[in-house]
């Protein structure tokens, strides 16, 4: 491996640095990255299509499972859109509870990220500590909703579970501990030499580039872009809360870390405000089974950035189209830019710094028209016939098997 020769190293689809299958093919020269090829699509689950096959009520359940971490973000974005089409006025108590869960979710997501970031730079102690403390917020969420990740709090027209006074006391107690620990992590992240060495100056994304590449969330805010849906287009109870939009001018992974740990403190502040100002009243209004025809775009500031849902209804029980734009899809383009002229060792932390969630991002793209002479578009039937023929040529005949299968199915 002479240093002048270039070679490609595969990172993924299966690689210890990645928590989900995704392919990064890295062209290396010695230890330096010359180019990165990103291939998405290993995690496509067809949720958008599945949503069209189910009723709005079932979709809330399904949409919540788009992401394992920001499940509340997706379901809130979805129900907000549906409520807008149906013209439902959500009671203020429900708005506050949604905000409360949303902020608790942000706390658990950011703590999780901090641990993962520590692991990516080989600082496992940080991982163990933050994930230990993350249990506190997980317990709070389990206390409120009965679940650790998919809370199932949202329904069209409000929330499904109330928050009692005792629960509020427990939350405050947990938040107090978390705040102390978070202050300690801020100290660690800003003073520990090896962390600073590994993070600062790595994965630089200047403000112009962040805007040009459409970065969102903490990734954009760390580049000095002061944009937060909670402030710029308030939803739920955010208009009534007092909080700061955290930005940083470091524009690197270090800045992204600072933004996230400081956002934790803001979240604690918001959780306290939510519990203090929690209005009385009902927690839901009755929603019609059939949603009137119309369309809506709903935006939500998920822990990872702006989450956009588009919902179109044709007046029936099922939506005509649901489109989810997860924050990672907006940030993934920036990764390629950030990796330019960096070392291989920076790759895991740069990818991790956008807090990627690949399964939320994977989409099916259908190409319309003939993109090239060698490519052709097949219908489902044609594709099936092609596959059968291909296997016959290679000595595998499915005709008998599929006949048997069909006769078996007919018996049912």
């Amino acid at each position, binding site marked *: 491996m002479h240093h002048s020769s270039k070679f490609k190293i595969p990172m993924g689809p299966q690689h210890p640095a990645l928590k989900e299958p995704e392919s990064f093919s890295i062209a290396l020269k010695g230890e330096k990255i010359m180019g990165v090829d990103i291939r998405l699509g290993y995690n496509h689950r067809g949720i958008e299509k599945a949503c069209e096959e189910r009723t709005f009520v079932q979709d809330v359940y399904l949409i919540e499972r788009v992401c394992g971490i920001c499940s509340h973000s997706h379901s809130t974005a979805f129900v907000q859109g549906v409520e807008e089409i149906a013209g439902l006025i959500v009671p203020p108590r429900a708005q506050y509870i949604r905000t409360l869960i949303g902020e608790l979710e942000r706390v658990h997501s950011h703590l999780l990220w901090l641990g993962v970031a520590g692991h990516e730079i080989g*600082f496992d102690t940080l991982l163990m500590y933050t994930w230990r403390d993350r249990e506190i917020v997980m317990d709070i969420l389990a206390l409120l909703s009965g679940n650790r990740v998919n809370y199932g709090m949202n329904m069209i027209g409000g929330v499904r579970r109330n928050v009692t006074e005792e629960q509020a006391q427990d939350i405050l107690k947990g938040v107090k501990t978390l705040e102390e620990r978070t202050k300690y992590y801020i100290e660690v992240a800003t003073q520990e030499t090896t962390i600073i060495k590994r993070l600062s100056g790595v994965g630089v994304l200047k403000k112009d580039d962040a805007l040009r590449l459409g970065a969102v969330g903490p990734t954009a805010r760390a580049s000095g872009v002061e944009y937060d849906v909670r402030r710029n287009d308030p939803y739920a109870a955010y208009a009534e809360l007092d909080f700061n939009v955290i930005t940083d001018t470091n524009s690197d992974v270090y800045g992204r870390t600072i933004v996230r740990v400081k956002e934790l403190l803001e979240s604690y502040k918001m959780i306290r405000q939510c519990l203090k100002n929690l209005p009385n009243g009902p927690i839901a209004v009755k929603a019609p089974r059939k949603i009137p025809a119309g369309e809506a775009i709903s935006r939500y500031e998920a822990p990872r950035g702006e989450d956009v849902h588009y919902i179109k209804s044709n007046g029936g029980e099922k939506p005509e189209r649901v489109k989810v734009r997860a924050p990672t899809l907006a940030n993934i383009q920036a990764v390629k830019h950030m990796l330019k002229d960096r070392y*291989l060792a920076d790759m895991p932390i740069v990818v991790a710094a956008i807090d990627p969630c690949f399964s939320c991002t994977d989409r099916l793209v259908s190409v319309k028209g003939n993109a090239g002479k060698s490519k052709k578009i097949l219908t489902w039937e044609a594709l099936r016939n092609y596959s059968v023929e291909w296997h016959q040529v290679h000595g595998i005949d499915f005709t008998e098997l599929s006949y048997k299968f069909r006769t078996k199915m007919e018996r049912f």
Partner: protein
Amino acid sequence: MGLALFTILIFPGFLFVSVFGLMAEFFDRRIYARLQNRVGPPWFQAFADFIKLLGKEDIVPCAANEKMFDFAPLFALTSAVTVFLYIPLWKAPVTFSFNGDIVMMLYLLTIPTLAFFIGGWYSRSLYARLGSVRCVTQLFAYEVPLFMSILSSALLANTWELKEVAAFYLKHPLYSLFNLVGFFVSLIAILGKLEKVPFDIPEAETEIVAGTFTEYSGRRLAILRLTIDVEMVVGAALLVAVFFPFALYFQSVLGFLVAVLEICGVIALLALLRTIVARLRIDQMINFCWKVLVPFSLFQLLLNLILKGKLIL
């Protein structure tokens, strides 16, 4: 003949060092876990892992050079174990020794690293090759401060024989206090040899999977892991023998216990060091070694030279 074989194969040779190494792995992991607020493994974990790996399928990649791939782990283990025979810890007449053995020991300790390089390189995996290159790059960085600080301690004792070095510090225990800088420099450098955080760059899991060991499995991986464990014990024992050889004060059993305690102490320090830092990048690691560790070891060398001048006068 029979005694020599017993010494080499059983005590304090191969068998003893292997068991000690596996126990040391448990000790290291346990302390690491406790410092991270985890429970950690039970005492037999290292043995269980070792035995399990021995029983696993052993795969040699098609493209690999089978001989090199095969011999690298054995070379590594053998040379690491050999070093232990020369280290005077509790046994007053050390098993083997000659003038200049301290230099030989340092070189024998280099062989495992080179064997890792060869094994990784000939396994033909991209990750392993990257790991191998990092392995050797790193070697050039930590080896110099390690050699300098260990040899400067021998310099003060005015001998190249470890037995005599130990005897010197036993006679003048206060002189070992002057070697503290050298001790800490070599402690950090040993982390590089053992490929532990912050110098676990050759096997940085999140970057190059398992680095050098990516293609190794089964028996060969078991031997490689045992090598690292033995290296840990041998490295710690070498530091103890060079800087604080006080176990030699005591009679056989007590001396043995004190020596083991001292070695465990060094291992605990290593565990503590790797708990509190993040992994460095290879360029940062080399910078750190040459710009921080080497000046400190030069300072140690200078200090010992001055002390030695005083001693002769």
